[in-house]
Structures are given as structure tokens and as C-alpha cells.
């Protein structure tokens, strides 16, 4: 197995649904090119801009779908509390929600 670096997709704010197809197209090309098995979707900028709406959900879900089609997994990096809540509310937390926080200890065992 060759270790391929995960691809990082940075979502910039403001994100609109119109940008989503292009994001996916770009990701598809990158996955093909690199053969990466993992995609990290960095939502830090959205959190800073206070954006957590349906455009973000649409983007996360579409990117997830694109990655899956190429056999890759996805992780969401640095989602803010508003986005986490929205993921819960829309029932997509489990599907989209492998989450990592940079520079922080992983959560201690929470039951």
C-alpha cells in the first residue's frame, strides 16, 4: 500500500449552492489524479464567517457522494457548533459527520 496524502477541500465563505457542482467536479479530478483514499473537508472558514446553512449541508453531502464514487472516505475538519447542530437537526450527522478538530486532543471517552 502506498500512503497517499489525504486531499483537503477548503470551503470558503460565503458558500452558495451554485458553487457545489464545481467543487465536486474539482474534487473528482483531484481524486482521479492522486488516487487519494481520503478527503478532508475543511469548514474552518465557514465557522469563522458564521455560515451554517443548507448550502453547507448540500456541499458536504455532495462532496461525500463524489468521494464515495471514487472509493474515498470523507472527514469534516473544524466544524463550528452551529454546523454540528445543523448536522444533528438534519439527521445527517452520522452520514457526514466523521469530524476532526485540528490541534486539539481527541475527545476523552464520552458516554
Amino acid at each position, binding site marked *: 500500500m502506498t500512503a497517499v496524502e489525504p486531499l483537503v477541500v477548503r470551503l470558503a465563505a460565503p458558500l452558495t449552492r451554485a458553487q457545489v457542482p464545481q467543487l465536486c467536479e474539482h474534487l473528482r479530478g483531484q481524486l482521479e489524479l492522486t488516487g487519494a483514499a481520503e478527503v478532508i473537508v475543511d469548514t474552518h472558514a465557514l465557522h469563522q464567517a458564521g455560515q451554517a*446553512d*443548507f448550502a453547507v449541508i448540500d456541499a458536504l*453531502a455532495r462532496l461525500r457522494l463524489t468521494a464515495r464514487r471514487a472509493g474515498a472516505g470523507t472527514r469534516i475538519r473544524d466544524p463550528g457548533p452551529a454546523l454540528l*447542530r445543523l448536522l444533528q*437537526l438534519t*439527521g*445527517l450527522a452520522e*452520514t457526514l459527520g466523521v469530524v476532526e478538530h485540528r490541534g486539539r486532543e481527541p475527545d476523552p471517552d464520552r458516554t
Partner: protein
Amino acid sequence: MAGSSDLSGAAGTRGDLDLRMEKHRTELTGYCYRMLGSGFEAEDAVQDTFVRAWRAYDKFEGRSSLRSWLYRIATNVCLDMLNAGNKRARPMDLTDQAHQATAVLNERSEITWLEPVPDGRVLPSSADPAETAVARETVRLAFVAALQHLPAKQRAVLILREVLAWKASEVAELLDTSVASVNSALQRARATLADTGGVRETETIDPLDDDQQKLLDRYVAAFEGYDMETLTSLLHEDAIMSMPPFDLWLVGHEDIVNWHLVQGAKCRDGKLIATVANGTPAFGQYHLNEDGSYSPWALQVIEITDGKISGLNAFLDTKRWFPLFGLPEKLEAGA
């Protein structure tokens, strides 16, 4: 397509935008109420939706109908508000059943509670009685509470399919399931929202239903006469009584009657004025003052199941509810 007459509504000028948005106000308020559980917040949300629509009108370009565009904006507005953390509930969602003899009144901040709403604010008037019935159906307290309790997968399917307009096949692929399973989840979600699914099936108000009218007349007579025997005969054995903003709720004849006789003794010799809340029969309840006049006590929302009362919901914040429902602040002596 350009120039076709049914697109003129979508691609009209900004000048008459206010007017065209106004036509959708009531149905949008109903939509937001179903998501937010508060009539006041729903009206704020619609206002915000109109402001956002006005600002973004340049980008609208009439690619969809104005109506569906407004719905999309309203959904985002509501989700933003929900993100702020105001998910609403009924007392029955939050605490265990209490008993009259040992009941403790714990008041919780009003923001917690699912609020009653007058039909006129959320139900567009429709010439079609069947359509009116369906619309009423979906603003019942039980319905709105259920929306907030759909299992995650059903909520996800509902939102991807109906809000984001994904294809069933795409949803299936994302959720790692079959198209059939997506369709059935959507059906179940709609069924839960439309009715049962652990939610009591309660009747919506129907002025043409003689039995319902008789039941309500008997309830008014029993309550105003404080006739506990008759009242008992109108209640299901497992009827529930709640009284937000207090978090306690009682179940069954004995506890409900004793509550009326002990804690609620001040309600004796009161008056009820009929109204409609959440598509359901409701009453402005007044209590008797020493000078013979009457003052507001509670907005009662009455849930009926199979011809008997299954839920008595007394919303006690009368300063908030009576003006909203157009109920008088005071009834004169002899009223």
C-alpha cells in the same frame, strides 16, 4: 420560455415584489411555525425572509417560481433560528408524569414551550375544504411536536428530497441504502408528520361535525358549572392535562379532577369563550373576580380523540395569548 405568461410572476419587477410576496405570507408563516413551534417567531422568520428576498432579488432571475424561492429562503431562516438553540417541546416531552397530590409547580422559561397559534395566522384561506382540512391537520400541536422527533434518517431523507430537491437515487447512494428504502423513509416521515407514529390522533375542528359540537357544548357546561362528574365522563381515562409554562402534566380522571378541585379551585364559576388554536378547538378561560367581572386565566387547547377529550392544554401566559387570539382582556359582570 421567456415571455410565457406563467413566468411573468417569477420575473416581475422589484416594484411589485412586496405585493407578490405578501400573497404568500400566511402559508409561509404556517411553514415556519411547523419548523419553529412559535407563532411569534414564525412571523419574525417570514419578515426576515422577505427582507432577504428583497436584498437578493437581483440574483433571483426567475429561474424558479417566486413561491419556491421564498420557501427556500424561509427554510434557511428557520434553520438559523433553530441553530440558535430554540427547539420547542411540550411538557410531556420533558418530564415524567406528575401526581396531583404531590405536584410541584416548576416554571420553565417560555422559550422552551411549543406555543399555540391562531389558525388565521398560519392557514391560508382556501376555497377547497379538503385542502383546508389537510392544512389544519399539520399545525396541530401533536404534529409540530412530532416533526421535531422524527428519527434522524427520516429527517435526512425529508430534507434532502423535499428541501434540497435531491433525486431519490442520489439520496440512496449517499445514505448507503436502496431507492425503495429512501422512498419508504420519506413515506414514513410524511405519515408521522401527517399523523400517528406515536402521536395521538386528534380531531381537528369541524363546525359541521355535530358530535364534536355536542362534546364541546357539554364541556363548556361542565367546566362553567364545575361539574366534575360530567367533566369526567367527557375525558378519556388516560386523558392528559398540561399547563405550560409549568413543566408538570397529569394523567387520568382522578388526578385531573382533583387538580381542578384543589390547585385549580379558583377556576370555579369561570367562563369559556370559544376560539380555534392549531386547527383544534380552544377556549379563552376566565376566572371570576370579587366584583363579578372576569379576568383571563388560561388559553385552553382541547384535543379530541374518538369523540372524547384526550388532552387539556392550558397555556397560562394569558398576557401573551389573549391578545394574539383576539380574546378580551376582561369580561364585565354578568357577561
